[in-house]
């Protein structure tokens, strides 16, 4: 259980810059997720920590030890590979025992430790099977058991769930966070799926298409207070509107022409160099907007009126596309709390939209 620190790391492959001047601190003992679109360089970052690629510039630390030039077999870092990379000619037992066997650990000790970890991962019944006889979920458990048996300081996971179907994926996500809780090892989990990152991680870093870290924080911070339109759009769905900073009687906010004036709650995260007249983006999540055909009482005046242009039924919720003027439509989620709705909203209905000022987020870019 140690932290990982990247200082000014630059990586070029075949003359192309993949990562440039990355500074990142991965806290120790936490479940850390590195989230980014495919091809953004997040797997390269993982491979640099694992030692499968070497940096062109910069340094990598584990705890306070500089491991920049250490080969992968001397780093106290283990990896759960995409598609697991289990050794096909070895049994489950020998796969798990591999890191002990190459260190010439005594046979009886190996048997004891493999037995113990297999029990913890409930694969003890399959120890003498071939790898090909296991299901996807069992293979994943073998891959994790193999990687953690030597108690590494850091465990790297490279999209370990990408190949599995969604039901199994949800179950294994829960299992993974249990494993992290049990081992207390620093987990670095690379994924392109925001859902995976938000559900398992304690800390999330978002990487953009240029390979830069866009934002870092807890899943809640990332979701509720995205700093950029990239982060806001990548994690969940949102409505992003472009306007200018301005001051009205009610206070400071962002004026979006032909739509409305978004009052910004001063307590919320605010762009540091916000000045009147400067271009600004605001984001409001679809579920933060209340939609109604009638005027609601006790919540003030409606923020906007619009016409329902589209409606998608998801079961637990319904998504409306509300046209507020010729060019701009807002997405609104409504939780389906009742079997039979009292007020059915349909295509072309005139609706009122409400939201709380504190739920509007100003984006830096």
């Amino acid at each position, binding site marked *: 259980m140690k932290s990982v620190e990247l200082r000014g790391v630059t990586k070029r492959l075949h003359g192309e810059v993949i990562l440039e001047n990355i500074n990142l601190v991965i806290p120790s003992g936490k479940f850390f997720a590195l989230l980014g679109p495919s091809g953004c360089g997040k797997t390269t970052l993982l491979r640099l920590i*694992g030692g499968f690629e070497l940096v062109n510039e910069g340094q990598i630390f584990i705890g306070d030890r500089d491991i920049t030039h250490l080969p*992968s077999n001397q780093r106290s870092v283990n990896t759960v590979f995409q598609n697991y990379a289990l050794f096909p000619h070895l049994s489950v037992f020998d796969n798990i025992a591999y890191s002990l066997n190459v260190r010439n650990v005594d046979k009886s000790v190996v048997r004891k430790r493999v037995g113990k970890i297999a029990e913890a991962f409930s694969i003890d019944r399959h120890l003498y099977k071939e790898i090909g006889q296991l299901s996807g979920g069992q293979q994943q458990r073998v891959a994790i058991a193999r990687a953690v048996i030597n108690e590494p300081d850091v465990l790297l996971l490279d999209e370990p769930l990408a190949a599995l179907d969604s039901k199994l994926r949800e179950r294994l996500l829960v299992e993974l966070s249990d494993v992290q809780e049990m081992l207390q090892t620093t987990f670095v989990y690379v994924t392109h799926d925001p859902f995976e990152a938000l559900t398992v991680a304690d800390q999330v870093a978002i990487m953009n298409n240029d390979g830069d870290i866009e934002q870092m924080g807890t899943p809640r911070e990332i979701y509720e207070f995205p700093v950029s339109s990239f982060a806001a759009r990548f994690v969940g769905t949102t409505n992003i509107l472009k306007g200018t900073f301005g001051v009205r009687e009610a206070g400071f906010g962002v004026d979006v022409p032909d739509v409305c004036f978004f009052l910004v709650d001063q307590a919320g995260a605010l762009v540091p160099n916000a000045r009147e007249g400067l271009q600004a983006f605001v984001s409001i999540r679809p579920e933060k907007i209340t939609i109604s055909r009638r005027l609601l009482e006790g919540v003030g005046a409606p923020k906007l009126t619009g016409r329902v242009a589209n409606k998608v039924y998801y079961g637990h919720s319904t998504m409306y596309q509300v046209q507020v003027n010729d060019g701009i439509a807002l997405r609104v989620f409504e939780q389906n709390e009742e079997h039979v709705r009292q007020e059915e909203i349909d295509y072309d209905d005139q609706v009122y939209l409400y939201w709380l000022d504190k739920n509007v987020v100003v984006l830096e870019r």
Partner: protein
Amino acid sequence: MNIKKLFLPQIPFFLGIPALVWQVLFVYVPLVFILVLSVQSGTFESFRAFFTAEYGLVLVRSLFLGLSTATICLILAYPVAYWIALCAGRWKNFLLFLLFIPFWTNFLLHIYAWMFIMDRNGVINTVLQWLGLIQEPLHLLHTTASVFVVMVYCYTPFMIWPIYSALEKFDVRLHEASSDLGATWWQTLWHIVIPLSLPGIRSGFFLVLVPAFGEFVIPELIGGDKVMFAGGVVSYYTLHAKTSSFGAAFTIITSCVLCLVLCLIYLLSRRFMRHVTHGKV
């Protein structure tokens, strides 16, 4: 319609017929022919003639030639195949092409070329004398060493190909996984790469061992026909002495010995696999 239905599923079978006929005509019929020939006198006399120490020695010598040629080829070919399959990158196709070239010239021409190289007045001696490193020409041709050099030269490509095709399928991530788990490069080679390429090693070994065991042209031309090998005995009895029943009998004896040796090697390789995969070096 019905005829079509009956005929269509059988197409693969009909397409296979020429190959089948070929195999029957040129493998099984000759085999039966040899069997009949060996006992044509009605007794096993032609077999009995070979159960002497001299012919035993011929078999042992041939086995030694075949096994050591195959072993040297394996040691030389494995790094080459490994490098081409896993490290060569964009040079891969060019290197494979280079491996093909020897197959374009006749086998005998290779041997004659080597004779020119190793002759008393050959390339090596001329160059060494010209450099002043030696006064008298070296005795290179007609030595055991020269036989091995040419044998290894001729058979190495047959070893590289099967090993290359086994390593080509190797998943490089297994290499990374092994290193990630703390193994050194050599440990990875021993525990992961070699076991997974064992089928290729085995077929390459057989592909070299079988013809090298029966080889008689190279020992005759390069080795100076000083000692007899199994192939030489067979060719002598079948071609020269017109005592073809002896030739047939010896062919059957050598085939049986060779089959036994191949089975033995197969079992050994399986034991090796078990040894490497279960436990330490």
